[in-house]
């Protein structure tokens, strides 16, 4: 593995008496896709929100190998779109570009709308978009400032099969273009197709790490279910 872009060491997060994360160690290399899978309540979204800077860890260290400010280096796509329904698609992207101090947010917005095949809907209000269109606009929003690390929190939530397939294609394109991705999902098959590495999180602890051929879709799901049941017992 090349030098890590992101590293977490002994990460802990407690909510009162509950340990949401109990000593997480992980690394993500530049250009790599890491998936985080696990059952509900495993701490996956908490981990991602800490990496984003939206929550503070109770203890442990985080390192991001970039020169710019942490939050400026992070892009975040969740199952919520973070879009303003009264603004048009283009205005949403320009707004985000301005928040990040982009020199020409309008040009960047137009380029991203074209990449996401949303140019025809650029001047329509985001509130009238279908879930699939909103998700594509949300991907553009997360990429406005050209982040070093793109965090994806359950991006398949609420998407129908066709929209989910399109999202997988789009994420594959981003991966092929050299983007570094961290993906939290329940869709173990989609995650296996996209990922260079995968960790299984159960009750705030890493229970398994898979990489390369271990991510073969034929056996991955069975091993995942086996491990989740074993750890639940």
């Amino acid at each position: 593995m090349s030098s890590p872009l992101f590293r977490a060491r002994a990460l802990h997060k407690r909510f009162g008496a509950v340990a949401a994360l109990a000593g997480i160690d992980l690394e993500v290399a530049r250009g790599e896709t890491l998936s985080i899978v696990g059952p509900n309540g495993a701490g996956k979204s908490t981990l991602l929100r800490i990496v984003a800077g939206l929550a503070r860890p109770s203890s442990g260290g985080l390192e991001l190998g970039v020169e710019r400010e942490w939050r400026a280096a992070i892009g975040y796509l969740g199952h919520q779109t973070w879009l303003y329904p009264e603004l048009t698609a283009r205005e949403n992207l320009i707004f985000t570009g301005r928040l990040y101090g982009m020199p020409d947010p309008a040009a960047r917005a137009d380029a991203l709308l074209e990449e996401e095949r949303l140019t025809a809907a650029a001047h329509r209000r985001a509130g009238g978009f279908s879930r699939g269109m909103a998700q594509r606009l949300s991907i553009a929003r997360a990429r406005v400032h050209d982040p070093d690390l793109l965090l994806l929190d359950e991006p398949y939530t609420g998407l129908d099969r066709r929209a989910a397939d399109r999202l997988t294609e789009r994420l594959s394109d981003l991966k092929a273009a050299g983007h570094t991705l961290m993906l939290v999902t329940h869709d173990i098959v989609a995650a296996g197709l996209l990922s260079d590495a995968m960790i299984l999180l159960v009750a705030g602890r890493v229970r398994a790490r898979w990489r390369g051929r271990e991510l073969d879709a034929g056996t991955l799901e069975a091993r995942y279910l086996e491990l989740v049941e074993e750890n639940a017992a």
Partner: protein
Amino acid sequence: MSVAWTILRKDLLGEWRSRDRVLSMLIFSLLMAVAFFFALPDARAEDWVELLPGLLWTAYVFSALLGLNRSLALELENDALSGLALAPGHRGFVFLGKTLANFVLISFVEAVTAAVFALLFGVDLLGAAPALALVVALGTIGIASIGTLLGAMAVRSRFREVLLPILLLPALFPLLAGAVDATRAAVLALPLPFEAIQLLIVIDGIYLVVGFLGFDYILLDE
């Protein structure tokens, strides 16, 4: 500072298109004016001059509460608040942007409300307009700043509609004391009381500084 202007422009554009906040605040203020009119049937013109400052600020505070509650709730739709929290730089500029937008919208509603009160109660406020505008602006800075801060604290709670008034009203008591005092002087064409103006400026300063610094923590998850 560009983050603050960006948020101000976004909020005003969104409000221009939906008009839901300003309309609800205006309707509420007008209903309060009518309610006061019928609640005090025996009041004479000179009584209204005395009563007006208190009634006006009562209407201002309660209509502002409606707008403040909605201001942060709009950011929760699609969890856009997390998008603001993730913007680089000090999150205090997010606070300034939201406070500026709230200040503009509340001020607009206050101006219309003052005109309605003047018409309904037969009180001439035109001569007092400059002094009144200064006092109302100072009071509104305080309401918008502490309201934005407490609104952000309350917004993720299930009881946010109840929580914001419970948190905000006690914080506004000292401000209201100064604002009503100074408004009475403005309406009666007397010199503005120095102590009241000083109190308003000090409270505004405290609320702005606390809000600017506090937003960096408030926008984060638990």
